[in-house]
């Protein structure tokens, strides 16, 4: 069989620019083989190389006293004391999920799980952040059903609970949905493994599923825009096998209890290529691999296909010489393929042999060091000023505020997500103390008193209107959710979903969002330890809202101090912390979008110093047992936060009678639905009132006493009064109804 000759045209078809191809020729000093071209093309793809984002990502604070491993490995690691650490990362699987929602989402879950257990940690919880197009778009129902069942199908089978997440809808995602998945694992410090290839002569071992032709060039697909022919890319979507991954998980953890290995990495995007080259790059070594020894699912696979396949559930291991037998024994016990396919070498060259012939010979340092890095031009979009213009006084006031309130609570954004999370096993492993449905999920760490709080957040309307402020808000809200549950944020992972970075306006959004996020992280003292960038979320030239999803990890030293967002006891007092943060802010609000059909204005202002004090106050109030519940004001403003605290608990809906916290002259609809940053609704037993107010004064947090829990109605004096049961019914049935799904 004659191999296709490599030409500049073929290089361009592989996504390499003429300049990039010139660098390849310079590195090799000759024309690359087809296999080598494939290797350069995936390693230098946007997805694997971060060539457009790298210089901006450096702005994130990534260090801290708890950080054991920052970005650059398979996942980040943060110390939680007692010799334990949490390992976590979020990653996108947007493009494949749009083309084939079930398998795209499922393999996203599979990939992020491998990123975590490849470091020696047992995964204990997953989250996801999902964005779909308009609820009534003809494809949305299909995509929602497929993505949710794909996440469920994979996560439930492997036995890792999916404990929280977010689902949001906007027409900007009609042609580009977002599927971001997050997993957290727990590991003892001495059991942490890294993806490194060290020790000349050590064997390189392939374990897991056989290699097939699925997913070839998936990383390249994730590095280009969609067009009307995207459906034709279905064959580039991989197919997941959660059963095999479960075996792989148990086998790897069993192997890691021995000291037979040196390094291990999963074969994710760009499969065998990225795992081998990245491990050797970290170890400062080289390798020689024999592709004939790779377990293969199909006959007649070429070296190009073997190196680029993204078949799932595979790992690459570098073991200690002479310990191959132990590795083999464990993987054979779990009925998995295991094959020594090469060895570590000392000359810094990655060599790939096939049928006795050398098909690739690439200097590894050059491949990584000379990888393209772009400082792409950035420019504020022309239309940004127009977008930020908003004259609230010109908005017509709704005739019936109660009806508007019920409509928002039962609408696609705020309604109960039970239809979704009921399909996820969220209880397995028996650690989930706060189930999905509160601001943050809380899990216990067995054998300790500790708890881990998890939340994922992003308001992409805010990011569209002002990416800098929107980026700050994404970090603040995620941290505030965790603080409401009583935990201290100790690290975050992010998924930066944007449009085409070659467009200066997109690059401006990206740069601004990162600046905002970095600033919030610095003030709040939260390091970014892992994450992922997803560009090219565009179809036919139309991009998504900038959507930097933030997954926040919080630590509770004592899990019994956890708090939920809902009221629990009639007669408890209702208070508003951060009352001075209220104001008429309709820019980017849910009310403006759902009721007036507009996304305009500027997001509510942020005060980071106040935010930090507020969160410290919330933790202190929880740990001193002064509050019964805490829930932050977010989408839908004061009225919707109050309704959520009344109706989102596991018991029956609770009523409440409260004052209007806004000045009397404020327009009623603005008082109810204005959004703000830094206000939290609390409930407490009457006996704790004085101590709670004292505590707030100590942290310089303003407090307003609003009213009492109880009764049949949720009643905001002078504004609106609706039956708690009516709100609850609209809220609990709204999601399926909005999408036309069966309840």
């Amino acid at each position: 069989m004659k191999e296709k000759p490599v030409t500049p045209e073929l290089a361009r078809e592989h996504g390499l620019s003429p300049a990039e191809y010139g660098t390849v020729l310079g590195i090799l000093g000759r024309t690359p083989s087809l296999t080598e071209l494939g290797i350069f093309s995936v390693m230098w793809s946007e997805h694997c190389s971060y060539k457009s984002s790298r210089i901006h990502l450096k702005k994130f604070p990534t260090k801290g006293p708890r950080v054991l491993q920052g970005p650059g490995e398979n996942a980040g690691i943060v110390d939680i004391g007692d010799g334990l650490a949490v390992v976590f990362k979020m990653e996108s699987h947007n493009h494949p999920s749009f083309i084939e929602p079930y398998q795209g989402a499922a393999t996203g879950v599979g990939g992020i799980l491998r990123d975590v257990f490849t470091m020696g940690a047992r995964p204990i919880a997953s989250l996801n952040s999902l964005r779909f197009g308009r609820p009534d778009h003809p494809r949305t129902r299909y995509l929602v059903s497929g993505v949710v069942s794909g996440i469920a199908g994979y996560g439930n089978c492997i036995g890792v609970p999916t404990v929280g997440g977010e689902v949001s809808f906007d027409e900007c995602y009609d042609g580009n949905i977002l599927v971001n998945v997050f997993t957290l694992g727990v590991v003892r410090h001495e059991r942490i493994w890294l993806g490194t290839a060290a020790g000349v002569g050590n064997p390189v071992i392939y374990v897991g599923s056989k290699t097939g032709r699925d997913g070839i060039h998936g990383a390249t697909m994730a590095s280009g825009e969609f067009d009307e022919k995207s459906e034709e890319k279905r064959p580039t979507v991989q197919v997941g096998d959660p059963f095999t991954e479960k075996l792989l998980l148990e086998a790897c953890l069993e192997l890691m209890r021995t000291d037979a290995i040196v390094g291990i990495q999963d074969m994710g995007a760009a499969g065998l290529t990225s795992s081998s080259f990245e491990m050797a790059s970290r170890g400062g070594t080289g390798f020689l691999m024999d592709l004939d020894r790779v377990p293969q699912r199909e006959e007649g696979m070429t070296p190009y296909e073997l190196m680029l396949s993204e078949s799932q559930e595979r790992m690459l291991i570098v073991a200690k010489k002479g310990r191959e037998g132990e590795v083999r024994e464990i993987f054979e016990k779990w009925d998995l393929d295991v094959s020594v396919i090469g060895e570590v070498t000392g000359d810094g060259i990655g060599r790939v042999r096939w049928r006795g012939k050398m098909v690739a010979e690439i200097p590894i340092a050059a491949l990584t060091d000379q990888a393209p890095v772009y400082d792409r031009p950035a420019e504020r979009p022309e239309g940004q000023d127009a977008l930020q213009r908003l004259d609230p006084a010109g908005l017509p006031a709704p005739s019936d505020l109660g009806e508007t309130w019920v409509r928002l609570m039962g609408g696609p954004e705020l309604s109960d997500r039970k239809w979704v999370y009921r399909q996820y096993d969220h209880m397995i492993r028996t650690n989930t103390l706060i189930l999905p449905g509160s601001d943050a999920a809380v899990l216990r760490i067995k054998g300790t008193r500790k708890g881990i709080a998890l939340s994922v957040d992003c308001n992409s309307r805010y990011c569209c209107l002002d990416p800098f402020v929107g980026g700050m808000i994404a970090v603040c809200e995620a941290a505030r959710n965790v603080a409401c549950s009583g935990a201290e944020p100790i690290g975050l992972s992010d998924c930066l979903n944007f449009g085409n970075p070659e467009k200066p306006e997109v690059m401006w959004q990206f740069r601004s969002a990162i600046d905002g996020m970095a600033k919030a992280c610095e003030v709040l003292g939260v390091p970014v330890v892992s994450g992922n960038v997803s560009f090219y979320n565009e179809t036919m030239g139309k991009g998504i809202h900038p959507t930097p999803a933030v997954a926040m990890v919080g630590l509770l030293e004592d899990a019994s101090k956890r708090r939920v967002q809902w009221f629990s006891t009639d007669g408890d007092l209702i208070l508003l912390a951060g009352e001075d943060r209220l104001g008429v802010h309709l820019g980017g609000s849910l009310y403006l979008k759902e009721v007036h059909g507009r996304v305009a204005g500027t997001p509510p202002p942020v005060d980071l110093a106040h935010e930090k004090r507020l969160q410290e106050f919330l933790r202190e109030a929880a740990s001193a047992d002064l509050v019964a519940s805490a829930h932050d004001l977010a989408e839908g403003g004061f009225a919707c936060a109050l309704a959520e605290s009344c109706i989102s608990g596991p018991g029956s809906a609770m009523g409440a009678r409260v004052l209007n916290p806004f000045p009397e002259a404020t327009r009623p609809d603005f008082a109810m639905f204005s959004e703000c940053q830094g206000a939290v609704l609390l409930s407490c037993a009457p006996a704790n009132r004085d101590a709670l107010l004292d505590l707030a004064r100590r942290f310089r947090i303003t407090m307003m006493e609003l009213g009492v829990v109880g009764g049949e109605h949720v009643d905001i004096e002078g504004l609106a009064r609706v039956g708690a049961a009516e709100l609850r019914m609209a809220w609990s049935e709204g999601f399926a109804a909005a999408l036309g799904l069966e309840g």
Partner: protein
Amino acid sequence: MKTAVLVFPGSNCDHDAYHALKHVVGVDADFVWHKRSSLDGFDAVVIPGGFTYGDYLRSGAMAKLSPVMGAVRRFAEGGGPVIGICNGFQILLEAGLLPGAMIVNNSLRFVCDFVHLRAGTDRTPFTRGIPEGTILKIPVAHYQGNYFADERTLSSLEERGQVVFRYCDPAGEVTRESNPNGSARNIAGICSEGGNVLGMMPHPERCAEEVLGSADGRRLFDAMVAWLGERSA
């Protein structure tokens, strides 16, 4: 007194069952790999939930062929207590140790939620001291939990007192709305004629501690310990 927690490829509630037995109830427990063909030295057997062999064929259809299932059959024939939970129940059905079959939930979706169960008989080792009519709050988590059997089998199960749990509402009423999966006659759990083999879709090991939302599941394991204690006395 020692409990075996079976581990098949794809079992995933094995650690939860072990934790509930060993750390909550305080009874000795050991994992038993599916390739073992003896259960000597064990006093009770737990077949935990999961997705054995990925449920790629029918749930439990592959696991029933594992060597350990021969030992389970002999153990059950000798009157030893066996509980199959979720996928474990499906394995017991496939192995013919209990009658009937499981089909996909009538919603065609996986369901994870707390449900209520109405106890039907206290004659199994796991329900001793849980009188008929007791209401328990226990979670389910399954895709194929829709119990199916022909009318004659269903009637015979009822006549012989083999229906151990039915789905019910919080007040104990057995209603259509409280049935999470479409199971025939709201059946959530059944036992063998001798009563010593129990299969149930809900997960008692997930609610053995109040901190997890219910401790009702612990009652089944406590009952088992008491039953074993009486037997050896």
